[in-house]
């Protein structure tokens, strides 16, 4: 029988069936972070449990770490207990922690792929909803809560009923300055924040073939915002060459074996999905959100929608969103003044994101009155960007250049906006109060965010560059 990529990963990882009928799926890699792991460590210690495969488990410091240059444990007073508990827990259980001074420190979803820990056809668990980022390499991610995290640590498996499959076929070609983030917001606008509930998404089609790996990681990052269990993209030659030489990726004879396995990890031509959605990406414009959930997104040339024209169940949410965002029906997105810009997060703070933002910024300055912060997704990205001189491009333009971590994405590290501010952000959630009490977040790509920083208002980055 023809199989989907999801079927193939499932069948190669199925350990057996539990007495309650759930499948037990083996987890190849497990990354933890300091916001949630300490509680699991505490409970495991109390219950006398051991970590089954500490050598397949890694720890990150990302949510609570300060982005200030020269930071230490105490730079974010609210983070110090988490950081120390993470150190104590990982050392007690024999888990390698990418500590603040480790070259591999960074946001788990950025670090895992870039050091080759996550590979095509793998299963991956992380106590964080954006685990699905790694789907961009063809791996199947499980985002979990703290109890599930304890389960994975104790058993190296997850007990789960197989979700349904949804193929999102993305046709057409992407134009210049339009990337993974814009595609993701386009899909979100189409299917909504619960559109993929109970499903794992496989993204496929010509627009996916065209996307570079980092753009695929961005798109898969936002699967959770679509309500999906997970999202992935079959690995191809681009993936294999992107992985080559990464520190934890196989080499030599192992690589030959791995490549053989990876090449079969794609959906068979006639495989059946439980659902399919097709979206044409030809002529896709840069997308920006206007509301307080990531599906409330529009082409940048759009205008704020009228709740009365929407389906009844969307109306209340929309009215509330417009109130929170202080937007009137019919207002064009282009021209909305912004006071803060954040370029960072597991969605859009990889090297290619910083490069495209720097290209837009180069030789320009942030508009008067706008505060700009760039926080690389990992310490490796930061070093690579600095080697290219990108830090200087940003600081010359008036941005603050920070140390890697989640920073203003969830405002868990002391970085946040001020009440009433309008912030354009390359992150994944425009929820009320997420980037600070009363902050109004507009999600966008790094290119769009960078252009807005210079213009002091939301702009169409394509026109912006053409104007020179």
């Amino acid at each position, binding site marked *: 029988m023809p199989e989907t990529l999801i079927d193939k990963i499932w069948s190669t990882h199925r350990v057996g069936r539990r007495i309650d009928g759930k499948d*037990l799926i083996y987890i190849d890699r497990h990354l933890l972070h300091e916001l949630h792991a300490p509680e699991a460590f505490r409970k495991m210690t109390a219950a006398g449990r051991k970590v089954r495969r500490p050598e397949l488990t890694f720890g990150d410091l990302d949510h609570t770490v300060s982005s200030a240059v020269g930071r230490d444990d105490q730079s974010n007073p609210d983070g110090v207990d988490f950081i120390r508990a993470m150190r104590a827990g990982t050392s007690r259980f024999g888990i390698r922690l990418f500590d603040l001074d480790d070259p591999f420190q960074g946001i788990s979803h950025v670090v895992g792929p870039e050091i080759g820990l996550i590979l095509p056809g793998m299963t991956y668990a992380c106590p964080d909803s954006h685990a699905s980022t790694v789907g961009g390499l063809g791996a199947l991610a499980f985002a979990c809560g*703290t109890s599930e995290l304890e389960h994975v640590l104790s058993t190296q498996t997850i007990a789960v009923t197989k979700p349904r499959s949804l193929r999102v076929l993305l046709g057409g070609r992407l134009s210049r300055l339009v990337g993974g983030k814009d595609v993701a917001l386009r899909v979100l606008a189409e299917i909504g924040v619960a559109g993929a509930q109970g499903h794992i998404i496989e993204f496929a089609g010509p627009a996916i073939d065209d996307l570079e790996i980092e753009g695929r990681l961005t798109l898969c990052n936002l699967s959770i915002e679509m309500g999906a269990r997970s999202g992935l993209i079959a690995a191809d030659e681009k993936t294999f060459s992107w992985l080559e030489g990464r520190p*934890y990726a196989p*080499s030599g004879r192992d690589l030959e074996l791995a490549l053989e396995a990876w090449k079969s990890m794609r959906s068979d031509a006639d495989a059946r999905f439980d659902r399919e959605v097709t979206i044409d990406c030809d002529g896709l414009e840069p997308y920006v959100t206007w509301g307080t959930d990531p599906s409330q997104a529009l082409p940048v040339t759009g205008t704020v929608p009228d709740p009365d024209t929407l389906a009844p169940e969307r109306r209340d949410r929309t009215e509330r969103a417009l109130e929170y965002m202080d937007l009137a029906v019919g207002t064009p997105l282009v021209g909305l003044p912004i006071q803060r810009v954040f370029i960072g997060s597991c969605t859009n703070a990889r090297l290619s994101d910083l490069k495209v933002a720097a290209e837009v910024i180069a030789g320009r300055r942030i508009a008067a009155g706008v505060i700009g912060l760039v926080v690389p997704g990992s310490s490796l990205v930061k070093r690579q960007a600095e080697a290219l001189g990108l830090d200087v491009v940003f600081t010359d333009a008036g941005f603050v250049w920070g140390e890697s971590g989640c920073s203003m994405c969830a405002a868990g590290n002391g970085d946040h906006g001020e009440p009433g501010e309008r912030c354009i952000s390359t992150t994944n959630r425009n929820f009320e109060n997420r980037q600070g009490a009363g902050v109004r977040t507009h999600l966008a790509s790094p290119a769009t965010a960078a252009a807005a920083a210079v213009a002091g208002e939301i702009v169409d980055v394509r026109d912006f560059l053409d104007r020179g």
Partner: protein
Amino acid sequence: MQPFQTVSGVAVAYLADDVNTDEITPVHRSLEPDFAELLFARRKRLADGSLDPSFPLNRAQFAKAEVLVAGRNFGCGSSRESAVWAMLAVGIKVIVARSFADIYRDNCLKNGLLPVVLVADDQDQLERDVIDADGASQAVVDLVTQTITSPTGTNFSFEMDAAERTALLEGLDDIGVSLREEGSIRAFELGLAIDSPWLIALPVATDID
């Protein structure tokens, strides 16, 4: 986990759709947060920090509510389990929603908080009944019979996966249930070592070249 059987208690309605876990429990700043305080920490307060008297869970008649009636896609967003622990901390033991975000529902099940979805017409009726009763009488949720009696006396039945129901009724230790398959896990790992050594024998890496 505490076994779940029957809950008789006040039901409160908070009917917004797409309530996310940032709203339910903002990021906690301490290893041992006050979960009750964290529940709807921002949502329940006005701009000046005082409790918003119009927020349903703030109203006196719902102070001891044990059943929450909610909208579509409840608990979307972050996978943080605090969004379930905080419900339990204030005594909410059942959530009846139009639908749940997947991870939130998992987190409920792992903590003995019963997530129920009724058919749409029943949910409409339950919402009306809960609003009409306004906390003056109790709802009954019985997992053994898979029924709900609304505070005004309407009866509904609900579906529940048999395994999930058993786990809740018996308060099963999820990890313990998986560890019964220890033999299969070990056999699987042996197979991996032979077929895909690169998956489990990791190189030692300390930095990029």
